[in-house]
């Protein structure tokens, strides 16, 4: 699999093909529907990231210096973006995850989804993903 930077580039290229916002969001919705749903026994309070409006569950498993993330959200657009973040960061090296610059979010025009007012839990999710990586980095 590719590096974090390479996957980001891939995603930017994919999004460049879309003619308008509708195609873009249809794709995000599709990704949301396709995201493997987190195990129900992992949808627990400790894994819950509370946004003001939509909720995200995030689980991290550490193996051989890499982290695998699984996640879910009750809103489909949030879930689609969660799927993209997992595609970029899951199964990567802890050190790479911790220092990852997620510039692609801006480039594919999803910055608004990460603004504070959206309150969808995504900002906290990225923070959590990185915190897991930091915590496991020295193990």
């Amino acid at each position, binding site marked *: 699999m590719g590096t974090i930077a390479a996957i980001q580039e891939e995603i930017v290229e994919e999004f460049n093909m879309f003619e308008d916002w509708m195609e873009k969001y249809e794709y995000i919705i599709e990704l949301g529907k396709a995201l493997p749903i987190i195990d129900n026994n992992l949808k627990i309070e400790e894994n819950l990231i509370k946004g003001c*409006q939509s909720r995200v569950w995030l689980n991290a498993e550490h193996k051989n210096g890499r982290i695998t993330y699984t996640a879910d959200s009750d809103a489909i657009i*949030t879930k689609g973006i969660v799927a993209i973040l997992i595609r970029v960061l899951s199964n990567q090296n802890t050190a790479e995850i911790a220092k990852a610059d997620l510039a692609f979010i801006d480039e594919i025009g999803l910055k608004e989804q990460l603004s504070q007012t959206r309150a969808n839990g995504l900002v906290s999710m990225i923070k959590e993903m990185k915190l897991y990586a930091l915590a496991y980095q020295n193990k």
Partner: protein
Amino acid sequence: MIDGSKIRVQFPTLHQKVNGKELVYFDNAASSQKPQVVIDALSYYYNNDNANIHRGVHYLSQEATDKFENTRKSVRTFINAKNSCEIIFTKGTTDSINLVANGYRSILNKEDEIIISEMEHHSNIVPWQMCCEISGATLKVIPMLDDGDLDIEAFENFLSKKTKLVAITHISNALGTINPIEKIITATHKVGAKILIDGAQAAPHTSLNVEKLDVDYYCFSAHKMYGPTGVGVLYGKEVLLNKLPPYQGGGEMIKEVSFEKTTYANLPHKFEAGTPNIAGVVAFKAALDFITDLGIENIAKYEDDLLKYATEELSKISGIQFIGEAKKRVALVSFNIKGLHAYDIGVLLDKMGIAIRTGHHCAQPIMEHYKIPGTVRISFAIYNTKQEIDLCITAIKKAQKMLT
């Protein structure tokens, strides 16, 4: 009837494109847009009259003081209060409620009870919880019926000699329910308790007469009434405000200060410590004049027509579930669509240039009542039109198609 399409030309913010589409603004229950006259009044103040009030002997200070006090007179007329000193300027409804709740901390004790309701905005819940925590008083919560009306029978059963204060919203911000406050006020007074009404959603849509209502405290915000942000009103009966302890200490609110004993200023200054939002208060008068010139009954009639039309058109959408179908409602409609998350609908409507509100609307107990994470809320103001409702319905159908 008023023609909203003619009025909207006075609102500069409405004439812009959002995501390439003409903006449709349906988040008026959160904050209304401002007419040019209000914006001009703000800018005129800073261009011509700026000075601190109530202190300076110089020309500008007197000019600013006069204008500030003129707004107080306008508010008095607007709500038909007996006396201008019963009008306290605050930061907003939340601040007004906190001012009263803070005062009651030292008035109440552990034998006393405060009654609120399940349909309150968080700002009419939390200050009373804090008040009860410190005073030891008990908080009682009137339940809501499933249609979004208050359970008045339960309320009447709560009332007793122990009741000291009832704090109820006039109109629910999440459901649009108009509560029968006349009846609630009368019942409250029968047991000798006082009543505070959260009028944040009512003041922009209904005509107010605090004297006739015989209400003890009434709170509202300028920014939901076409006025500036950061300005609110607390109306209180003079005799009660005189007894209520001051909220914040500082300049303006004192008579004399010494280290032995400080005495407080008379009303309304006792509750207006520090330099207030002078420009905002001055410009609020322009907003009140705007409403008065149109006539609040005419505004209500026009908005009611929009509400009726929107409800009719929305009910044609498959899977629509209205949240709150109280018998008397005003200016807003809250709903969900089966199988869809309100947040997703909100995001897609924004892409189509339509500003609506989604989520729990700072009224989590209401969402808990219906066991839902939130609703989609469309709320109206005088500048909205039926054409905008049509655009919104088309957009909702498009979002529904994309999401299913």
